[in-house]
């Protein structure tokens, strides 16, 4: 049974992650008074795309095709590290979050290369911005995890979140709150959400993640979209683990709660998207620096305690 659990957790992630995008869209539609897309729109699109014949630019090479494949694989591998409801997945070891961080880096690396392979001005632009934001997002994320490790005294993700209890929130509430805020900003930026990016437009002034996928089609695009969904799941579950420290002891109950929390995260993203305007592109680094500041403040608090 214990071996099955991680398998089930991963399966849940694989199956449920496209749902989050649907939730966000529904929340946004609700706020703007529209009916909006179906909740399962992304599933449909993935299915459709997987059956399409792709069109490849004559400029591109194997790099263009390898990008989505490796990118998705990296995210899938990241799932093997990601804790579910504070419980370990397949691979849990000291420093596993570094591995996670670098897997995300790998995904970014190949995506950017694939974008550059098209020789298009737009995709180059998107790639450039992606790398720029990563430079600010990664330290913020890293510092946040460091603070968390300091709070919990643990070296692995599952260990940290497993050790996080309601008691921790009582004793280290400011730290954890700051960290949650920081992670949330990183989530928004990394998943091309407002206010860092607008996933709905292809206007060049906003183009970041979306622009990089302009030339992809067919199964490759499906891979990219599915990868994006997984990435959102990944960040959302980290935050969910943090804000939901209480462990009932029952795996089923915890998992259900955790699933609800994830949906809540998606809803929160939708709310933010609905009530906020996108930032000017040049201001995005400052947003990420804010996240960085939150993380460092948290760490400094924690080191001082």
């Amino acid at each position, binding site marked *: 049974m214990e071996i099955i659990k991680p398998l089930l957790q991963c399966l849940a992630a694989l199956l449920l992650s496209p749902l989050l995008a649907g939730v966000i869209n529904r929340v946004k539609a609700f706020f703007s008074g529209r009916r909006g897309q179906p909740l399962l729109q992304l599933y449909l699109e993935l299915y459709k795309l997987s059956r399409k014949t*792709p069109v490849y630019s004559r400029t591109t090479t194997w790099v263009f095709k390898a990008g989505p494949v490796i990118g998705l694989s990296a995210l899938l591998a990241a799932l*093997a590290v990601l804790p579910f409801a504070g419980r370990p997945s397949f691979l849990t*070891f000291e420093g596993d979050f570094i591995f996670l961080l670098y897997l995300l880096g790998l995904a970014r690396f190949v995506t950017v*290369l694939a974008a*550059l392979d098209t020789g298009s001005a737009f995709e180059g632009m998107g790639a450039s911005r992606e790398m720029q934001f990563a430079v600010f997002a990664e330290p913020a994320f890293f510092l946040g995890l460091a603070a968390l490790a300091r709070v919990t005294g643990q070296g692995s993700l599952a260990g940290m979140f497993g050790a996080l209890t309601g008691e921790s929130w009582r004793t280290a509430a400011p730290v954890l709150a700051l960290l949650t805020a920081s992670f949330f900003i990183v989530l928004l930026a990394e998943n091309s959400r407002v206010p860092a990016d607008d996933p709905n437009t292809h206007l060049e002034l906003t183009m970041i993640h979306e622009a990089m996928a302009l030339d992809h089609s067919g199964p490759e695009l499906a891979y990219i979209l599915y990868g994006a969904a997984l990435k959102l799941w990944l960040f959302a579950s980290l935050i969910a683990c943090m804000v939901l420290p209480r462990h009932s002891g029952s795996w089923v109950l915890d998992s259900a709660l955790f699933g609800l929390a994830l949906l809540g995260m998606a809803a929160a993203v939708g709310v933010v998207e609905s009530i906020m305007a996108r930032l000017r592109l040049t201001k995005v680094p400052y947003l990420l620096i804010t996240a960085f500041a939150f993380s460092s403040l948290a760490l400094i608090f924690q080191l001082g305690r």
Partner: protein
Amino acid sequence: MLLVLLSIVILISSASLALCLGRNASRAQDAGAYGAAAASAAGLIPALQVLLTGTAETISFPWPVPLGSFTFTLDPLSAFFLVPLYILTGLSAVYGVDYLKNYAGRKPLGLAWAAFNILTAAMVLVFTAGNAVLFMLGWELMAAASFLLVLFEHEKPQVRRAAFIYLTAGGAGALMLLAAFSLLGAGSAALDFSSFPSPSRGIASAVFLLALCGFGLKAGFIPLHVWLPEAHPAAPSQVSAVMSGIMIKTGIYGLIRVLGFIKPWEEWWGWTLLIIGAVSCLLGALFALAQHELKRVLAYSSIENIGIILLALGLGMAGAACGADALAGLAFGGALLHVLNHALFKGLLFMGAGSVLHGAGTAELEALGGLAKRMPRTAPLFLAGSAAACALPPLNGFAGEFLVYLGAFRSLNSAGSTAIAGVVSGLALASAGALAAAAFTRAGGAAFLGEPRTERAAKAREAGPLMLFSMRALVLLCLLCGLAAPLLLAPLGRAVASGFGLSFSAAAAGAASVPLLYVSAGGLLLLALIALAAARRSAFLGVKMPAAGPTWDCGYAAPSARMQYGASSFSQPLTDFFQPILRKLGQYPVISEYFPGRASFSSEAQAVFFNAVYLPAAVRIRNLAFRFSWLQHGRLQLYIMYIVVTLLGLLLWKL
């Protein structure tokens, strides 16, 4: 041990052979390359043996030179540096045969090979010398040989300038090392490493600082790096690979050796290393992002990696000073492992850059593009090397950094300053990693992907078979070292034990083995997933024939190579953000009319430290010298007056 000496003998004799055959380019090439390859094969055996068994060997002959003795020591630390040395020089030599063919008849290839083999022999000497005089002999031979190699294309003024800076830096560094060895051996009759007495605290600190500067000038960390980005691009590519992969590591090796003589360490030494390392890795990556030439990008990336190694050493020393042995052991192990890894991937990358230079005739990023089509075999190798340089799993770059991260996180749960050290080093690593990723996607993208930007790039040709062989071998090693990192732990532990102390390796072994095993498992999982995803994609595609078309440019149907994002535009958001540090020089068009005519844009990455610190200092010293030049004004009367005044002064003062 004897085989190591044999390798030196082979190297020297093949060097002289190559020199003698200088008139016949291809035979000189053969003599040099086969000599180097044979020496590598011979030398690898004992080095691996020592690493696997952990027994140190020492051979000593008398040397009729004051203070000197032919004492060679092959302990696991030496062996750990010798292994990448032999691997990389052997492969570089093979690579060089194809690479240098272009130059036959135009350049004295015999001399180049002689210098290359002497350089290799000198590095072997440095890694095995057990006597200060012998060490300095190897050290300076290394500098002289590489100086000649840097001057390979001495017709270019910037190459001569680079060589001058390099030579001067080397000379200054060597003088500091002499001072350090003098201090260390002040009380002993000979200057054998084993006979150095334990110095007093003040002396130890002085030795530390001297060694830091002296070895730092070779290792090339900031701010002592100024020669590196000039000299590495100037040398032939296989030499750049060796210089960057191994030669700058002699500085690290020397520093570790000297640290072994001045135990116990002070905490501030660790902090010094840590801060220098952090600054180096951050600024190195940042500067790499701003460069316009592929080999310069790689050179700055070497600075970044040296910074990482130094940072790890510093973290370890800070930890050791607080008694956190496991943390220190992890950091030291990470440092050493990164030495190995960096040698492999940086050697690969420089060879890749060399292939670009060889195939397209230029390595200017803005003149390249689309090489993945013209050089389909080189491109994946270079991009894989880039991924390794960004420490992406499952390649080898990750393993070393991972150990350092582990050490850094270990420190988080200890009190006070060690925790801060851990945070600083982890943060520096993460930020530098992100910057390096930007730099390498930029370099790889601009050179290999998209459309060719110039005629030369469009007509590039694939690298020769021997060049490809060397690069493939290195890629394979990169992958192997990444996946089989847990197997490296045992030899690594022996190297740490012999270089730093037994307690560290013992404490770290337990802490590192399980996580590394998991990392390897994760890497394998990743590879499996990639295979799965690729297979799934093929399944999706089925028998459908993908259509081909122009790049979708949001409706613009005639995209040209001039419109694609170039290297400067790719990095522009970041370089603008860091402009206060980078101080790029540039000319931006100011558009003042409604229908602007031709506009031009240029930007140039300048050598910030050199221009801001070293050049003014040099000019100031020269001006000072000129200011005193009137003393030699040519008038006899005053010359004699010097004599009289001095005599009178001496008489009045001393009598």
